[in-house]
């Protein structure tokens, strides 16, 4: 985060961004801002407008209305200069399969205007960093999905861009490659890079993003830090696992005064939203004990971003497998 008191221009600043394709309003007045050296997560279901927004911010698509500034430059007026300051890794691993890893990166380096020798040095350096050193001289055709993504990300970093756009960087990756990608992104941010990340994975946004902008149908429906968003959904949930599932009704009755909403039960589990945090657990234990109800486990659960998404959009984020949990 920039030191307070200084007027640091945001790394990304979007106001009133609109873009339509025919009758479809892909973006219908989007505002967002990212401070230098932070990660902004653009969250939303398929077709929400995430990719369109990224395309506008990376000069690939002209906006219909609004102001979009990246790294202090206007995406339309300063497009040519801006392209030297950004890196883009898209939804597809945009690598030439017929070229080796080194050749891919050297090509990109030379297209940034670097000489062949310097481009080659940088290529080797990046390949080492992304654990592709040994594969660097093999055609990318033989790379695994995770290796291609790493090569793609390396290509986006060739010119050491201060602002990096990652459009669904881990979609389709296995869990190990995903974790690796997350660590890489965290390292980049630690070095001062600003990252805009789109994702359908709430856990990804939760882990990486300093601020989250939730968009649906081309509009921003919520923004804030992950914690702020979770707080907006309501307080924490108290989850009680009963020793005996037959006592669920009694447990609901005993716990009902702790919440404004009626508790929910599922088999031997009873859960309820609680507002005031302090003392809730003690109070719950006292009431259950008083009613003679045996407890196997009991705890507070923070709402997940899945809960946030569900409550904001009325539907769960797509491509998540823990959809059931948030019901």
């Amino acid at each position, binding site marked *: 985060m920039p030191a307070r008191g200084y007027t640091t221009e945001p790394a990304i600043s979007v106001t009133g961004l609109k873009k339509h394709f025919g009758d479809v309003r892909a973006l219908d007045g989007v505002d967002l801002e990212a401070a230098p050296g932070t990660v902004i997560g653009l969250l939303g279901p398929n077709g929400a407008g995430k990719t369109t927004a990224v395309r506008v911010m990376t000069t690939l698509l002209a906006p219909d209305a609004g102001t979009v500034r990246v790294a202090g430059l206007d995406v339309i007026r300063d497009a040519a200069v801006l392209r030297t300051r950004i890196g883009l890794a898209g939804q597809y691993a945009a690598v030439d399969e017929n070229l080796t890893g080194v050749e891919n990166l050297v090509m990109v380096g*030379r297209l940034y205007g670097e000489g062949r020798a310097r481009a080659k040095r940088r290529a080797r350096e990046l390949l080492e960093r992304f654990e592709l050193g040994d594969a660097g001289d093999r055609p990318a055709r033989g790379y695994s999905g995770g290796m291609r993504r790493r090569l793609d990300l390396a290509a986006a970093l060739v010119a050491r861009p201060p602002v990096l756009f990652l459009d669904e960087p881990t979609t389709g990756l296995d869990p190990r490659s995903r974790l690796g990608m997350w660590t890489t992104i965290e390292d980049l941010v630690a070095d001062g890079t600003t990252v805009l990340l789109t994702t359908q994975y709430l856990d990804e946004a939760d882990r990486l993003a300093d601020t989250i902008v939730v968009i649906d149908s081309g509009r921003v429906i919520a923004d804030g830090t992950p914690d702020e968003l979770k707080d907006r959904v309501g307080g924490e949930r108290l989850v009680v696992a009963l020793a005996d599932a037959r006592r669920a009704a009694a447990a609901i009755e005993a716990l009902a005064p702790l919440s404004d909403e009626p508790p929910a039960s599922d088999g031997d589990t009873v859960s309820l939203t609680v507002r005031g945090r302090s003392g809730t657990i003690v109070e719950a234990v006292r009431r259950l004990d008083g009613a003679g109800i045996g407890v196997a486990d009991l705890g507070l659960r923070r709402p997940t971003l899945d809960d946030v998404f569900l409550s904001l959009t009325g539907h769960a984020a797509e491509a998540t497998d823990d959809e059931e949990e948030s019901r």
Partner: protein
Amino acid sequence: MRRLVADTMVIAERNLVRLPRAPDLLLAFTVQPVMFVLLFVYVFGGAIVTPGYAYEDFLIPGIIVQNIAFGGFVTALGLNEDLHKGLIDRFRSLPMARPAVLAGRTLADTVTNSLSVAILLATGLIIGFSFDASFVEIVGGLGVLLAFGYAFSWVFALLGLLVSSPEAANSLGFIAVFPLTFISSAFVPVDSMPAALQWFAEVNPFTIVVDAMRTLWLDAPGGSVWGAVAWSLAIIAVFAPLAVSRYRKAASH
């Protein structure tokens, strides 16, 4: 301008280094045209009457022109693939000269076209084709050929950016170019065709280029070298700006 040249060379290199690694592609550039020459000469050659010329002599300029026009197919297929794989997005996000991706591709085509022409010409000479031309005319003919091939690469570049899939590029390209090459003086004398086709064949740029080649290489009467060059320039003048403008707006998927 210096940037355009440098970026064009980078892209051309990208498209050429892959050639030795894709044996199937190399086969298309080398074996396929030779196969066509042999089929035409030995299957149709006996049945087609070409007054004043042996069929080998008549055919070689025609089949080289047909072959070079199809040389740009690689550009259509390659660009379409780049579009789908997000490479065009990457290139467009780089501070490179805008027309370089297309200019590099079409330049690479010219190199592969030269290779095809050399192989076809060698095959022709082996089966009995003989020049009736000066050295300057032979070289001039090569220039006319490569210019025409370059022009068609731009047509294919536009096609590759317009269609939804490489398969579509393939079939549309064939539908558009095959009749053009056949309803021309490339394989049979135009006056052997029905009247309506004759009319088309005579204004067809393929006929004009093939006739120019026969004038240059066989000393045949009636061909217009300037007409052939003018057609190539006109095709470039129309299709290169169209393709570049399409590229500027190109979107993946």
